[in-house]
């Protein structure tokens, strides 16, 4: 190793350190922005070092430079445009798209490396083949799997589980083809075998995600994020590059942990999610129905009276709020109440929204100060002291049935909304949540139902509160 390549390698280590420090600074909202800047700096120096290496080496052809520069510029433009224009509610789709391209690029790096080594004098090393196959396999599965996941979240592909007849058998066949080709490649270098791995993995990615319901997509995206990281680390092994190995491993670990946290918060095991969604018939639902119970409905004026004369209000936002784009309206209602001397806080369930922590981002977008956002463990003891719990577009995470065994959501951690003095639920209809069961909270004598679209309901309540206190 020459001094020059050594120095480049050291710059890569520096970049990797920036990534670690950047992620570490994400520990608190106050330092998170600096974390992103440190991480960006790491990326910039890694790319600059690579460019210096390319120039120093001098073997890049004119066409090569053109191809790289045009590719990078076009890619940057697309990335920049999508990052600037994306709605915060559509964040999960965008993350999924970035997973797709990241995984795709990692697979391409290994494919190119294989083609090149195969025609070179030394041939392909056996140990490299292992990582090439792993990279291509994981990268290709991530590529198509992420595209399907994004399509499902965007509503281009149906969100309900798509069951293909004999899907399991096809999956097994695809796995057999991929592993068979991989085993063959270990003994004989063969490009067709590698392409077979690519095709089988691409098909497997599609078939893996299609049968998973839209409600489970957040977990899938988190998992695919971990996959992408792992694929990038494998690409690092193939081309023997530390920056890729460290960064990929970091992302693989973080994605893995987030996936587990997310699955725990939904009270589901990963195999359970991957093998089929809620409400597909295999879940025993206890029929303690609230159908014959008394449901009280309420109008804007009465809701406003309750809110305005409360001393403590806890708002429980759910995906219905995000879907109706009502986060700005809620922030305004909260502000009006606060100005009137009411203590307002938000109870955020870990899976509120469509991604872990998604609801926090949506409320932050509406300028809600983050100290008002309380996590589940912090807010649950406060519910008994709350005069009003205002549930907007959240369903399963407030269902007391989760405390009893034998229901579809048994054991799922929930917000103790039923402990509040009174409860107002804003909801479009008596429809079910993802779990497909009745919410016993709605039959609670303390509960009043406000049947309306979240945005409309919030605007009406705000207006009514204003006339009361103004």
């Amino acid at each position, binding site marked *: 190793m020459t001094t020059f390549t050594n120095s480049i390698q050291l710059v890569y280590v520096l970049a990797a350190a920036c990534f670690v420090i950047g992620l570490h600074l994400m520990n608190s909202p*106050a330092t998170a922005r600096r974390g992103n800047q440190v991480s960006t700096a790491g990326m910039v120096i890694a790319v600059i070092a690579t460019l210096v290496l390319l120039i120093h080496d001098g073997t890049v*052809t004119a066409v090569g430079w053109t191809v790289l520069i045009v590719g990078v510029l076009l890619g940057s433009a697309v*990335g920049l445009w999508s990052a600037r224009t994306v709605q915060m509610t559509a964040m999960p789709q965008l993350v999924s798209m970035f997973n797709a391209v990241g995984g795709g690029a990692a697979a391409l790096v290994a494919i190119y490396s294989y083609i090149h080594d195969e025609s070179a004098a030394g041939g392909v090393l056996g140990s490299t083949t292992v990582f090439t196959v792993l990279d291509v396999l994981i990268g290709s599965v991530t590529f198509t799997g992420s595209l399907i996941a994004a399509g499902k979240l965007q509503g281009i592909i149906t969100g309900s589980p798509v069951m293909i007849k004999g899907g399991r058998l096809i999956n097994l066949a695809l796995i057999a083809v991929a592993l068979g080709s991989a085993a063959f490649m270990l003994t004989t270098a063969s490009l067709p075998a590698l392409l077979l791995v690519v095709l089988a993995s691409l098909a497997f990615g599609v078939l893996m995600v299609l049968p998973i319901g839209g409600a489970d997509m957040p977990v899938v995206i988190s998992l695919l994020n971990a996959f992408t990281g792992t694929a990038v680390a494998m690409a690092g092994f193939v081309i023997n590059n530390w920056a890729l190995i460290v960064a990929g491993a970091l992302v693989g670990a973080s994605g893995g942990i987030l996936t587990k946290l997310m699955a725990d918060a939904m009270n589901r095991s990963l195999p359970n999610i991957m093998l089929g969604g809620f409400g597909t018939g295999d879940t025993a639902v206890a029929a303690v129905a609230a159908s014959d119970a008394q449901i009280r409905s309420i109008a804007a004026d009465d809701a406003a009276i309750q809110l305005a004369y409360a001393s403590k209000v806890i708002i429980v936002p759910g995906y219905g709020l995000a879907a109706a784009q009502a986060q700005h309206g809620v922030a305004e209602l909260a502000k009006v109440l606060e100005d009137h001397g009411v203590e307002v806080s938000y109870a955020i369930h870990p899976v509120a929204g469509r991604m872990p922590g998604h609801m926090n981002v949506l409320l932050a977008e509406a300028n809600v100060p*983050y100290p008002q956002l309380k996590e589940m463990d912090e807010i649950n003891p406060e519910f008994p002291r709350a005069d009003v719990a205002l549930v907007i577009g959240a369903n399963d995470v407030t269902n007391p049935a989760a405390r009893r065994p034998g229901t579809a959501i048994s054991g799922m951690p929930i917000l103790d909304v039923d402990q509040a003095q009174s409860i107002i639920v804003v909801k479009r209809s008596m429809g079910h949540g993802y779990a497909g069961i009745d919410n016993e909270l709605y039959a609670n004598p303390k509960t009043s139902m406000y049947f309306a679209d979240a945005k409309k309901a919030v605007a009406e309540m705000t207006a009514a509160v204003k006339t009361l206190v103004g």
Partner: protein
Amino acid sequence: MSTALVTDLTIFILALLVGIEVIGKVPATLHTPLMSAANSIHGIVLVGALLIGLTAHDTVGYILAFVAAFFAAANVVGGYVVTGRMLKMFRRKAAPAPVQAAKPAEAAAAEQRESVRS
């Protein structure tokens, strides 16, 4: 097993452990920005895409280099920009937002005073 492979594996395992340690402490509030940040970090594959250029001297090589560079660049740029956009929204108080953007140090000090008062 070559020395390079052993070194690579060592780095990989240690980085995995560091990742687990660092991420485990991030509060749920920041999980979406965290995932987005991790997302941009795997854009490091751009380095791998650029390195294809070193040996790519035929049509197949050029095509692969182009697509890989395009994908990875979209990942890096988009990832960092959208993470930054999200984190910019996390504020302590809603009111002094424009000032905060212009003079971060002063605003932070003001924020501290405010939080002491309340």
